[in-house]
């Protein structure tokens, strides 16, 4: 009987379901194609959001299903985001007007933006939103993990319903990009007044899609907002984010056509499997990723308080051959310093190769490493390499590093712990050497360098090497206040030389590489350098 039921289900399931929606004329989309309206995009999200408030959360698992409900002041232009990420107005009417002393930023707002409850969005909403992010009412339990990014802001004002003015204490090199943060959803001032934590459990924005439902553990869905302020957008009738944690189940969902895309990233093996199974029905987008693994030394513990030991351990790693080999099996590839390789602030390769562990001559580096260990009195160093129990990419990266250390006579044991215990150990200094990681939404030195501040100062809870270094603090602050890009680049490179080479506190292993295989039906979405931005789906459409 069971077999009979099963066969019946198979046969009926094989019948194709028609897609809803109609094709209409619309503005030209990417690649010169005419975007078509209609259809439901189904995409995969591998974990679920804790709360619905992007101002307090840090996981992409919130941004992917929920960003389509919201707008930002500025955002990254979805067109050309792969090669040339460009900030464009979202609810802002234009780019900011900046005063000559770079301390006053005046922003005009669009006048046709409505919240999903029909109320008009005004400068009061933007003011309330940014006050919540930069000056959170902590006494009322409002948390804002990224308020430090806006430390330069002195005050915010809304002189008229369509204007917002930010006053800065000092010029900031990262302020403009901070206004395009994918976390800074515009909230309703009225709702925030009602309850500053209202958005933790409710959704109500000005974005291209309104919310249909959220079934925990299952899916999140939204439908087209007919009052969206950009005419003709969005193209999709609806979207459905399906929560699938298992990597094989994710791949199966794409292969069977039940889902069209996953926006975070797949492994090379998943890509190849899908490519074999789907052939020309699969498109693959790839890009370098603003995520990196660091080797972090517990500088409060001997012998890792000795810079010679730290330098030896970074010198031993042949990143160039590692990048080539590991990119075949996991999501790392590029060799770089503290900024993503190829990005604006990335150190030029010739300079980078002068830094310990980043040169092309692996043999010489290993000989230098052995000599340094001998000088430090630990020629046969043994330690535990602390890692989290997540396969991609942590395990292969750690195994690679351990193997490289073996070549200089160092015996590191791979100590794998479940994520929560791993984080607790790193924070509590209960480790020798750890594999840390960092992901950001933007190539911005203020973001990438935040974990290099002194552990007892601005780096508290971020700097897991647990050192204090006043000189480095001053260097990081100086680059942050430099608004000239060329001058700032040089300051950032000086920091890299100091932190990675001279002191070797925490050193990058390899930068991640993002791979998005998806159905060829998905159009209007370009891969970016991170998995946080470009998720409002306003420009995404489905081909027949």
């Amino acid at each position, binding site marked *: 009987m069971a077999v009979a039921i099963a066969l019946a289900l198979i046969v009926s399931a094989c019948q194709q379901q028609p897609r809803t929606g109609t094709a209409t004329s619309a503005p030209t989309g990417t690649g010169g194609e005419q975007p078509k309206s209609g259809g439901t995009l189904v995409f995969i999200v591998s974990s679920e959001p804790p709360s619905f408030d992007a101002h307090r959360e840090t*996981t992409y698992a919130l941004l992917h299903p929920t960003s389509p409900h919201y707008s930002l002041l500025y955002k990254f232009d979805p067109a050309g985001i792969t090669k040339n990420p460009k900030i464009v107005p979202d609810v802002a009417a234009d780019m900011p007007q900046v005063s000559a002393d770079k301390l006053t930023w005046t922003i005009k707002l669009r006048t046709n933006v409505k919240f999903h409850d029909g109320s008009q969005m005004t400068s009061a909403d933007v003011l309330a939103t940014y006050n919540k992010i930069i000056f959170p009412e902590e006494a009322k339990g409002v948390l804002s993990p990224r308020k430090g990014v806006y430390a330069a802001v002195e005050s915010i004002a809304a002189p008229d319903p369509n204007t917002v003015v930010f006053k800065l204490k000092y010029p900031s090199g990262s302020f403009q990009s901070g206004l395009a943060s994918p976390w800074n959803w515009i909230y309703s001032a009225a709702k925030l007044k009602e309850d500053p934590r209202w958005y933790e459990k409710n959704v109500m924005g000005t974005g291209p899609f309104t919310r249909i439902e959220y079934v925990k553990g299952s899916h999140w869905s939204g439908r087209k907002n007919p009052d969206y302020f950009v005419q003709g957008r969005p193209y999709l009738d609806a979207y459905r984010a399906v929560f699938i944690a298992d990597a094989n189940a994710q791949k199966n969902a794409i292969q069977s056509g039940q889902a069209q895309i996953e926006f975070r990233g797949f492994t090379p093996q998943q890509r190849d499997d899908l490519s074999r199974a789907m052939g020309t029905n699969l498109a693959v987008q790839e890009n370098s990723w603003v995520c990196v693994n660091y080797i972090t030394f517990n500088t409060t513990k001997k012998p890792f308080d000795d810079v010679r030991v730290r330098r030896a351990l970074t010198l031993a790693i042949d990143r160039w051959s590692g990048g080539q080999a590991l990119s075949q099996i996991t999501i790392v590839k590029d060799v770089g310093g503290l900024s993503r390789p190829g990005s604006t602030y990335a150190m030029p390769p010739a300079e980078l190769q002068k830094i310990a562990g980043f040169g092309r001559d692996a043999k010489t580096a290993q000989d230098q490493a052995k000599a340094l260990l001998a000088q430090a009195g630990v020629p046969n160093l043994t330690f535990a390499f602390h890692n989290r129990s997540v396969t991609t990419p942590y395990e292969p990266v750690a195994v690679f590093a351990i193997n490289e250390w073996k070549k200089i006579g160092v015996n590191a044991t791979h100590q794998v712990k479940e994520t929560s215990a791993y984080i607790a150990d790193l924070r509590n200094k209960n480790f020798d050497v750890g594999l840390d990681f960092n992901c950001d939404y933007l190539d911005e030195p203020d973001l990438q360098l935040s974990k290099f501040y002194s552990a007892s100062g601005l780096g508290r*809870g971020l700097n897991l090497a647990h050192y204090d270094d006043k000189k480095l603090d001053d260097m990081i602050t100086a680059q942050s206040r430099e608004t000239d890009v060329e001058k700032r680049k040089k300051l950032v490179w000086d920091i890299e030389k100091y932190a990675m080479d001279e002191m070797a506190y925490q050193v990058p292993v390899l930068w991640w590489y993002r791979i998005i295989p998806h159905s060829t039906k998905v159009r209007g979405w370009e891969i970016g350098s991170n998995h946080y931005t470009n998720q409002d789906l306003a420009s995404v459409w489905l081909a027949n």
Partner: protein
Amino acid sequence: MQRYIVGRLLLMIPTLFGVAVLTFVVMRLVPGDIVALRYAGTGASVPQEIIDQERRALGLDKGIPEQFADWMAGIARLDMGTSLWTGRPVVEEVSLRLELSVELAIIATLLAIALAVPLGVIAAVKQDTWIDYVIRVFSIGGLAMPSFWIGILMILVLLTTFGWAPPLTFTSLLEDPFANLSQLIWPALAVGYRYSAVAMRMTRSSVLEVMREDYIRTARAKGARERLVVVRHALRNSLLPVVTVISLEFAFLIGGLVVTEQVFNLNGIGKLLVDAVAHRDYTLVQAIVLLLAFVFVLVNFLVDMLYVFLDPRIRYS
């Protein structure tokens, strides 16, 4: 009998209290912190002050005895608390998944019984014939192959042969029975096969044992037909151990299908429990473990009551 039932029901309270204490203590002994995980687990740079602030907000800065007292006071008011991870009531989180888990357990159990009892009886009646060998190989196969692995194979066959996979999201049986079964029949088959193998072997050995009893010989001597002997006399008397096995497996299925749930992307209790442990969501873990313990205790109790029905010789006093 009534006194026995009341006694058994009252005994559930200290049992569940013991489970509650054990779960509470074990969760606190495991290293890790939900707040650090929530903010630092994604690679984001979050200052320590935010972590400290959130710990205070969740009451994790309180002493362990105080946390336990708060939790117990909540249970006394039938308030299981809110999930530390999502901030939603624990009851809401669990009840959402319970429908799927219970339904899957029921379908798997029905499939297992439908396979195990007839095949187990046939194997016993046809002992040491080729029929018995085939059934035994079939049942050993079920024991040897993990159900999640069978699930993976099923999905691969469906995908490669038909280009189809079971639906990704759950639809209630009442809302759309077809969509519901399209999703649940596959994991139920995978789990039910292994489940049936256990019950099948138990049925076979139990029937074999009973078939050697004097009253079976007497029934045959009286000229009763073989089918009547097997069904009326042998089967009913051999059901006690089978019922025990089936019941305990049923209780296990409610929360024990973690891997199978992942393979089929099922939004069940097992997956919720694993996620809650990984997140160090103390209140949710405590509630789920308590629920599963309650299911086990209740099923045990019901099985004991069923014994009386199956074997009139059994009396509780």
